[in-house]
Each structure stands twice: as structure tokens, then as C-alpha cells.
């Protein structure tokens, strides 16, 4: 092949790189190792992580059972090793799964249109806020302090450089729900959107209808976010929101130390041209057969460049496919039963460990243990239980409180043990 290229040696391939820019030594990385050694290495690393522990951690990342079928589907090379479906004639498989994903996201959230996915819930929030800015021409976003702290941090990073103003409004210390008086006092003619999460970071269900009415009265949009998608199996969807930006990790996406997950972005029909990211639409081919393709690309960076609605390109297609398979397997009845089981487990735990807030909760809640939470969690670790998330890191005002989560995977015996240790 070198000869066909008119070259005498492989080094000549790089003659266009000036000598001073070339690396004049081998990379200081070890030689390659065999498949067996790689497996062995990663197993040894995995052994240094938690193994065989029961866990009460939620806080945006949930332990739900992952049906075997999900991995069977996403391991098919035709899904795993294909590119973004720009060439629709040979990408109909991926395109149709995304179309189904978009449909089910709409059905779950009560929205009219949904995109093909975002990186995750946290990055979907600033995208939603920027979208609200474009729609309203206003530059202030009000975000609930009860929304996920890391989501709020990501929003702050994006906002800082864009002239977007971010203000937080508080929560009621008795119910754990939005402090509506505080929200109302901050709404003004500069407010582009109000961002709320439900169930909120403390697991408490919010009154999205009331938040929407308040936002709309001020000419602002309501951006609704969620981290626990399983709650939508039973909770009324945020039909009054304008934009929904959330996280589907609960749907067959393993916690994987925080990613990759699948964010969603959905909205009312009239805002479709302001949506960021990829969209799949239904059409026909030249023989009149149903066919799908990427569409409305004039919103996107590869066409619009600096005027695009977002810079997003690669998203989370394969992870969104996991969620799609999961939603289809569980279906209408399964998601309901799943939500009911989560509700039952968490409320069993709530009957043993008193929740801090009085608001209605889905599958997690804050509680205050009798002893310092660090002490409690250390004691639990000895019993092979990872306790809840200490809240002081994100909410110093909540002192010794801890966030506890129970899902369909949580065993009654472990909840009993937790309750004993926390008492």
C-alpha cells in the first residue's frame, strides 16, 4: 500500500508535519495487554468499589431493575455501531426507535413534541432556560432551591457567560414544597422562566399547576424537570408546563458512577422550532412507504452555525434506546405497577423513619437521624448498607438531615435494619 502511495516508508506519511511538531519518542504508555488481562484489571478495580451492599441512595440516580432484554437489544451491532441517522435509507431502524422515544416522552410528560435526547437532565436545564430566553426575549430564570443542586450548578455555569440572570426561590421548611410567596415576590417582567422539579430533590411532589399559573401570570414560561422518571407512572404529568427537561436514568440505565444517562427535552407544539437537538419526523419514501428522517435541521449547528439553537451534536442515542426498550417492555401497566411498588416501599420506610417534611413524597424523603449522620452511615456500612445522602453538603440549613430512597429493589429487611440504626 505504501508503494501504491509512492512512499518508501510509513514515516513519510507524516512529512507534512513539521519536525518540531512531531513527537520524537514513543508515547510513555505501557505496551498493549491481552483481553484476559484487561478483564482481570477492570475486575480488580470493580472489587475496590461497593459490592454486595444494599443502598438507600437516590438523589437523582436510582436503583431500578434492568430487564435482560434491554441489553440484548442495545448489544445488537446494528444499533451499537451505527452513526447518527443522517442517511435515512439505511438508518430506518434507529430513526423509528427515536420516533417511538419522542412519542413516549410526550405521552409520559403530557407535552406535544420531544427531541431525540439530551446529554442528561443537568445539561437539559440550561438548554431549557436558553430556549425560554429565546421565546420570551427575557433574561432571568427563577430556579427552585429544591431542584437538584448539581442541575442548578450546571445552569449557573452556562448562565454566567450569557448575560442570563439566575435567582433561586426557596422551599417551605414544613412541607418541603415550593415557597410560593417567595416565588411570587421574585417574578417580574424580566423573568423568562420558572424552573421547578417534581418530585423535588427531597422527593416531595410539587404543585406544578399552581407554579405554571403563577409563571404565566407574569408572562414567564414554566420549565418542569424531574430526576425520577418512574414517578411519571403514577403522577399527573406537568401538562401546564411549557418545557419539560428531565432525566430517564430510571428506565434501565445503570447508575454507572453518574453517566452516561439520557436527558429529555419536550415542549408545547408552538415552541418546536426553538427546541435544541435532533428531531425525527415521519415522511414517505419515493415509493410511498412510511419512512422516517431527521428533520427541522435548520435549528441545528451543522446548518445554522453560530445562530443555532444549541451547539449540541452527539447526544445519547443508545442510552435513549435503553429507555425506549424499557418503556415498551413495561408499557402502560408496568410503569404504573412499578410506580406503585416504589410508593409502597418508600412509605413503608416512612412509617419506620419519620420524614422531615410533611409534603407528599414518591420514593424518597428527607429524615433527621438521632445521631450525627456520619456516625449512622458508618454503622450502616458495617452491616453492608449504604445509608442515605447527607444533605448538609448541599443544604447547610438542613443540618443533620439525610435523603433516603427506596425503590422496587429495596428489601423490607434492609429497611428495618436502617430504621433500627437511625433511631
Amino acid at each position, binding site marked *: 500500500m505504501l508503494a501504491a502511495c509512492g512512499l518508501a516508508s510509513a514515516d513519510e*506519511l507524516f512529512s*507534512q*508535519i513539521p519536525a*518540531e511538531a512531531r513527537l520524537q519518542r514513543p*508515547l510513555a*504508555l505501557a*505496551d*498493549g*495487554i491481552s*483481553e484476559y488481562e*484487561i478483564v482481570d484489571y477492570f475486575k480488580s*478495580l*470493580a472489587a475496590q468499589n461497593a459490592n454486595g451492599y444494599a443502598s438507600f441512595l437516590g438523589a437523582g440516580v436510582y436503583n431500578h431493575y434492568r430487564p435482560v432484554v434491554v441489553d440484548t*437489544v442495545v448489544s445488537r451491532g*446494528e*444499533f451499537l*455501531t451505527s*452513526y447518527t441517522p443522517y*442517511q*435515512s435509507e*439505511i438508518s430506518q*431502524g*434507529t430513526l423509528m*426507535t427515536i420516533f*417511538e422515544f419522542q412519542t*413516549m416522552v410526550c*405521552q409520559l410528560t403530557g407535552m406535544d413534541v*420531544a427531541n431525540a435526547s439530551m446529554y442528561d437532565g*443537568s445539561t437539559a436545564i440550561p438548554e431549557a432556560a436558553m430556549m425560554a430566553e429565546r421565546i420570551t426575549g427575557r433574561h432571568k430564570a427563577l430556579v427552585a432551591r429544591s431542584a*437538584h443542586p*448539581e442541575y442548578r450548578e450546571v445552569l449557573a*455555569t452556562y448562565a454566567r457567560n*450569557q448575560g442570563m440572570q439566575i435567582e433561586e426561590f426557596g422551599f417551605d421548611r414544613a412541607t418541603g414544597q415550593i415557597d410560593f410567596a417567595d416565588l411570587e415576590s421574585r417574578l417580574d417582567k424580566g423573568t423568562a422562566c420558572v424552573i421547578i422539579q417534581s418530585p423535588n430533590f427531597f422527593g416531595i411532589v410539587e404543585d406544578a399547576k399552581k407554579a405554571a399559573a403563577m409563571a404565566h401570570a407574569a408572562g414567564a414560561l414554566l420549565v418542569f424537570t424531574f430526576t425520577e422518571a418512574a414517578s411519571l407512572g*403514577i403522577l399527573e404529568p406537568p401538562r401546564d408546563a411549557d418545557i419539560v427537561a428531565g432525566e430517564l436514568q430510571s428506565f434501565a440505565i*445503570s447508575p454507572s*458512577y453518574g453517566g*452516561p444517562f439520557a436527558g429529555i427535552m419536550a415542549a408545547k407544539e408552538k415552541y418546536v422550532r426553538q427546541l435544541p437537538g435532533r428531531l425525527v*419526523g*415521519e415522511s*414517505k*419514501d*419515493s415509493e410511498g412507504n412510511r*419512512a422516517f*428522517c431527521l*428533520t*427541522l435541521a435548520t435549528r441545528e*449547528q451543522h*446548518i445554522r452555525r453560530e445562530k443555532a439553537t*444549541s*451547539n449540541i451534536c452527539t447526544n445519547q442515542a*443508545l*442510552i435513549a434506546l435503553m429507555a425506549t426498550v424499557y*418503556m*415498551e*417492555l413495561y*408499557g*402502560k401497566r408496568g410503569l404504573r405497577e412499578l*410506580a406503585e411498588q416504589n410508593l*409502597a416501599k418508600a412509605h413503608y420506610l416512612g412509617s419506620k423513619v419519620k420524614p422531615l417534611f410533611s409534603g407528599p413524597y414518591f420514593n424518597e424523603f428527607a429524615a433527621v437521624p438521632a445521631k450525627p449522620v456520619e456516625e449512622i452511615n458508618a454503622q450502616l456500612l458495617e452491616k453492608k448498607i449504604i445509608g442515605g445522602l447527607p444533605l448538609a453538603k448541599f443544604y447547610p440549613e438542613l443540618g443533620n438531615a439525610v435523603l433516603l430512597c427506596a425503590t*422496587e429493589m429495596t428489601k423490607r429487611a434492609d429497611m428495618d435494619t436502617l430504621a433500627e440504626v437511625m433511631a
Partner: protein
Amino acid sequence: MIRKVRQHLSQNESLIFERSSPGKIGYQLPDLDVPAVDAAAALGAASVRAEIEGFPEVSEVEVIRHFTRLSTWNYAIDLGMYPLGSCTMKYNPRINEAVARIEGLAWAHPYQPESLSQGAMEVIGRLEAALCEITGLDAVTLQPAAGAHGELTGILLVRAALEARGNPRKKILVPDSAHGTNPATAGIAGYSVQNVASNDQGMIDIEHLAGLVDDDVAALMVTNPNTLGVFESNIAQAAEILHSKGAMIYMDGANMNALVGVARPGDFGVDVMHINLHKTFSTPHGGGGPGGGPVAVAKHLEPYLPVPRLKRMKDALAWDFDRPGSIGKVKAFYGNFGVMVRALAYILAHGGPGLRNATVDAVLNANYIRHKLRDFFDLPYDRPNMHEVVFSDDRQAAKGVRTGDIAKRLIDYGFHPYTVSFPLIVHGALMIEPTETESKDELDLFIDAMISIAKEVDEQPETLKNAPHMTRTRRVDEVTAARKPILRWK
């Protein structure tokens, strides 16, 4: 002559909603070991939905058949060469998939105690170190989720560093050959964009650049090798021009597959760059993600990296949140960890020498294609290329056949098309990146297909204009799709 494929049966399949019938289920849940709870009582009747309207109800085997049938409608690297330029569609080793699924890694919760996360943190630490060595830069953050997200992170770092000096400046320079994400990123980071023209060799025009760089310029975003597959040989000079005016140089690492083990951006003046783990480091594209977009920086940008930073203590790894200069978080938690595991497995499998060999093969493959196809397609920038080569449809356009038609005809020959009509500085571009994955046999098949298509342009151009002919779905009406969008089933 079409040698790679022939037709076979393709199963029909409807949307899952059309297969649904009430009462069917595909899931199992264990019996509850706690008392059931009345939802209306626990949550308030107004908060409880009646049902998820329209959601499917199907059995497990229907789900399996549904997705298996759909999967057969896709092309994939597993079926053959996928020569998309600037996308680096290389083989995705299955060992990567296996190790990412090891329970202690896949089921690690991001908030579990650090003492029970040391293995996960070691993956992050080791990958950061490897990427520092590969890029010749001093520090790496793995938090960004994809290339464009890495670009944003990188530009925010530039901005933070300039702000610390007293003035974030106003403009980002972007060559006209750049990926669309570059200008879009600059916009989102609060900068205006100024285009830099390419010279007649397809490279940054250094004199033009020198004239543009003033005290308002924050950085130049440059892809190297650029989107023509050409190494910007004046890159060190460009860096000097920028640095002399207090500006920085951002490198889009989308084409890093041409450089690993051969040249390091840190050695030719780059201040900050992103890497695409889903390109250079073999993690699967998955139909459009997930990706990984690590950002590597020179020492002077390190204080601004996103929080938290991994810190090596005496006998353990720890997360350091106390970083007052940080731009903050760009994503919840620590990044796409599962993608990092796969990338590290790839690096370990190759080792230093193997990584360099991959680069050599990738560049050789692209040059081989250039030499074999140059008599049949116009080469607007006729010079040695790196990992990809860009032709134009000039000769074929004279017969009324455009790059998009050639691409669609290539599908009939059993290949995924190349990147069509990009970069924008080449009229009717055919952008071809074979990667190191392809053997000479597969390359020759591809070359034969391209030559055969070039002959068809002369003999039967209509065949191309209606292509593809062999797919189950013929050319899709994208115009109607955009004019009357149907974005969900109803």
C-alpha cells in the same frame, strides 16, 4: 459491478403503538413485601394520573422481534466500512462493552462513599493521565459528555482565564473549514464569531490571521488536521501570533485519530483542546451517542477546570471540590463514566506502540484511497493528506450528478456514504475517512465501488439520481417532513 451485497428478505414492522393490545405485558415485578399504599391518599387525588395515555402494551417476544427487525434496517460498522469523514467510524471492540458492564463499575452510585468508589476513581485518574501523555498537555477533565460539550467547556476555560486577567474579550476566530459546532459553541459561550479564510492550500492563511488578531480576540478555534484532512503546518506560528496578543488557541480534537503517538497538540502551542472518546478511542457511536468529550489544557488553564477534580492523596483518591477559580460544573456528577471505562480499555489493549500503529494505518488507508481515486474524482486540494481525504464532485456535476447522488448510489454497493457536502469550502465535497479498521480488501472493494459509480455517471446518470435502488426504503421525502412535521405517533 456490485460485489459487496445482494438483496435478501427484510421483515416489515409497524410502530410499537400499532402492535399494542390492552392487557399484554412484557415485564415482571416481584410480589410486594410491604403493604400496598393508596396512591390518592398518599399523593393527593389531583396528583395521580388515570393512566399514561397511548402507552404501548406488548409482550416480551414482541419487543424482541420489534427491535430485532428494526435493527436489520440499519447499516453499521459491524457490516462494513463506514467512511464518514471527521466521524472516525472505527471498530468498537467488544471487550470494552464487557468491562463497562462489570457490576462493581456499572452499578456504582455517584454518591456512594469515596472509600467504596476507589476503583471507579482509578479509571478516571488513569484515563486522565493517559490523555495528558497523548495530547502533551498538563491536565484533563473528563466531565464533558460529547465533543460540542467539550468545546463549550474549553471556551469557558479560556473565558475564565481572560476574565481573571481583567478582560474576557469579545471574539472567537473560526476558520471557514470548521465544524458547525465551533461557531455554535462560541455563541453559547457569549462570544461573537469572526471567520478566518483558508488559503489556496486549504490551510489557515497566516497573514490574514495576523491581521485579525487584536485585543478583542479571545481565541482561535482550529481543527488539526483540518477538515480537509490536511495538517495545519503553520500551527506553531499561529499559536505564536495569538499568544503574542494575549489570545489562546483552542484545538478541536475531532481529527485526533491522525495524530495519536505521532504529534502532540501541547507540543505545537495548543492551550486547550477536546478529544472525542467516541471517535479516536473507539467507544461506540450508538446511533448518535453517548459520547465523551474530555478537555485537555495547558498548566495555565488548570485552575479553571470544572469541579470536582480528582486528587491523589497518600493512600487513596479523593474528590476535590475546593477550587475557587473553577468555571463550575458542566454536567452533573463526573462525566460519562461508562464511556471512560471503554476508552481506557482501548488504550490498555493498544498500549503506546499500538496506538501509534493505529494512527499510521489510518493515515495510510486514507492516502491509499486518495491515490486510487484521484483519476476518477476531482481533488481540489491535491496534497498529501492525513486520516481523511476530500474530493469534489466537479467532474460529475458536469453531467448533472452531485455528491449527494453519488453517496446514495454508494449505498447500493453496500457501503455507508462518506460525509456529503462538508467541509463547506469545497464545493460538492466527498469527505472520506476510512480509519485504521479497514483491511486492504475492504478498501479495494470500496475503491472499486467508487470507480464503478464514476463510470455510471458517464453511462447511466439517471441510475444515480434515483439511488438507492436496493434498500427497503427508497429516497425519503425530507422536504415534506420539514414542511409538515410529524414528530410523534398519534
